[in-house]
């Protein structure tokens, strides 16, 4: 099948993008189907369509116009589109963004923020291994080794538990894994300065930003 004409291509990509920020799975289905029917490249439909919509969502989240429920609904719309398009993806290294091991640190059982980050990363094409909550250093490191992870993501919601992040970075250091694995952290009491202090590479203040940060960390690694 031939690629769709420019104007139709634009319309489909816009439709896909709009479906995400309008939080509309039915619309995502409709435009993903049109992308498939018109023979549009599936990767392009995801990257220039759905993912663009997620960037709009991210901007709205920055202004807090959107919040947790909208983020969840946007991810749902995007995943609906991706699920339809997936069988048409040419297996290509470029579709895999990287591997992340993520969990809430030991002593902490808050999960929502971490779940959101995991969801957004998956939606953005990362392979995510979510180790849940109350995660000790050994478990982070073990999984990261096993999956040859690019990134370890840590979340903490309490001033008392966020200190544990340093235990994990130190352990990475001691096991000689720190060179290979990037560390990103987040959670309400965590800050940019704190991230530096505990030896993390980056801090992300919310789930949508975490995707950006993760992409940059993987890009750095490649470069």
């Amino acid at each position: 099948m031939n690629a769709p004409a420019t104007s139709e291509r634009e319309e489909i990509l816009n439709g896909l993008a709009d479906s995400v920020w309008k939080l509309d799975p039915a619309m995502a289905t409709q435009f993903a189907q049109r992308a498939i029917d018109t023979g549009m490249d599936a990767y392009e439909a995801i990257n220039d369509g759905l993912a663009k919509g997620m960037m709009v969502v991210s901007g709205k989240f920055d202004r807090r116009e959107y919040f947790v429920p909208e983020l969840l609904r946007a991810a749902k719309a995007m995943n609906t589109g991706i699920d339809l398009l997936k069988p048409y993806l040419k297996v290509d290294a470029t579709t895999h963004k990287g591997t992340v091991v993520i969990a809430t640190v030991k002593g902490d059982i808050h999960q929502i923020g971490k779940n959101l980050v995991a969801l957004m990363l998956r939606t953005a094409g990362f392979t995510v291994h979510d180790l849940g909550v109350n995660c000790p250093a050994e478990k982070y490191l073990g999984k990261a080794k096993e999956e040859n992870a690019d990134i370890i993501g840590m979340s903490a919601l309490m001033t008392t538990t966020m200190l544990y992040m340093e235990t994990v970075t130190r352990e990475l250091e001691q096991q000689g894994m720190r060179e290979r694995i990037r560390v990103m952290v987040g959670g309400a009491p965590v800050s940019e300065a704190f991230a530096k202090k505990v030896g993390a590479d980056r801090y992300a203040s919310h789930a949508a930003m975490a995707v950006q940060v993760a992409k940059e960390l993987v890009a750095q690694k490649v470069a």
Partner: protein
Amino acid sequence: MGLTVLPEGRTVAVAPGVSVLQACREHDIDLPGICGGRGRCRECRVTVIGREVAPSALDQSLLEPEDLAKGWRLSCQLMVEGDLTIALPPVSLKLLDPSVVLPQLSSVKPVIQDVEVDLVVGEESDRPAIALLEEALAGKGILLKRASIAALRELGLALSRREKRLRCLLHEGFLIDLRPPSASPVYGLAIDIGTSTVSMALLELSSLAMLSVETERNPQGAYGGDFMSRIAFAMEKEENLLELHGKIIGRLNRMIERLVMSYGLARRDIVLMTLAGNAVMHHLFFGLDVKALGGFPFRPVLNEALVVPAAELALKLAPATPVVGLPLISGYIGADTIGVIVALDLVNRKDTVIAVDVGTNAEVALVHQGKLYVCSAPAGPAFEGAQMACGTQARPGAITKIAIDDARQRLRVDTVEEKPPFGIAGTGIVDAIAELVRVGVLDESGRMQETDEWPAWLRERAHLAGEMRAFIVARDPEDRPLYVHQGDVRELQLAKAATATAVHYVMAAAGITAADLDRVYVAGAFGSYLDPKSILRIALLPDVPLERVEFVGNAALAGAVLATLSSKHMETAVRAAREAVRVDMATDESFQDVFVDKLRLGH
């Protein structure tokens, strides 16, 4: 180096390189440090007087340029180098000091037994005096288990003076004190140590009268507004635990001192002290390690009722005076919840009621068909106005109430002490959000609408705070806007959702719906100042008619008062701690869905 602190005018010696916040901590000068000196809030700001001090990077990022020009600096970043004079922000004389509501107490079995006995002394017998006393007490049906050294000294003296009639004061078989017969009153103290404030009630035990309630700031506030930051401080090094312990004991001693002076009391006439407080405040009061309370699985050192002589805590009472800590339910459901349960007599009720303590930590207790369910959730400091763009504590000039009058197209604000507005307190933010939902500036998801969708007469109040939409509530005397922005709404939604989720889970555990609730009690210092209409509208409480909502003030303290006066109530406390069903929500599979649903500002 000298640090002079206005308006008091006190000068304290400070070592170089110490921050102003730290110096204030050391010298017991109250300065709120919501974030615990981590440079994440601006509550600890002070004004530097008569000198130029270059603002730190954090000053520049957290304070407005015009405030920097006025000499405002964050005290956690401000180092004392050379003599320095600072002015503290104005503090309200009227601290949040809610009423203590007590039930009618007619005749109670007292906690302190206050009896007169006659010793039968055989002139030729060498039986020890204490055995004679034991016998005399047994005749009154009282089992003497132990005696304080003060009581033994009195006993010996009494016998050598040939005084055979004695007045005995006992606590659970422990003879606290002994004296010649008299009808002079003896007293008890009931205390509630909250994360932000400490309240102390003075009780006359025989007449069951509450003579006074004093409230002061918890001096540990300088180490962080929420208790987690105090645990974090205690984690830094072991001495820090004792520092926090010493701060609260010091403050209580100051309060006791004042009561003794103003009521002309003899210290030995204070014969009992009972304490309520969340698990962390309870542990810090007794000097017990709090590190294990800082994270999962939140293990307390102990959870049963604890009795310690005052001397072991360095409290300025008679050394043997028993200090009773009410039991905890768990490491995160503390003796404050027990206090609330006792005050409302939840374990003995046949109706279906829920009590919600609204604050930094939400505690919820529900009784249904005689069964008690409890749950707690960290709501964070949003309700107290912390981390809100124009948020403030309830100081003079803080906006505490907001009402939008559509008919007359007017917006009314109330401020503390009717001073010109300078910030918005937590209650004001709750009001504002409830009102903005009602008039359609916010939708139920919490999203602030485009200005052209606002009621026309309110549109002039639209504002852009950075990139965020905002609603101007009032202007300060310098015409700067005081607003609630989209981010503030979200912060409040998180606190509200945490509380409402805890409420949801206890109701689910009991298998009831809002319609089953005969009564909804709102407890706590903060809760008492909330507008019931506002908290119903934003669905902080279950969906019940307004008339079923009742504010019960500082119920934790009321519970401590009852447990000081009446042994039945003390037993209730012990029973409640054993019988309460702890509802665990964080590990529930549906937790995230429930929480997200509870973010909604409506039922």
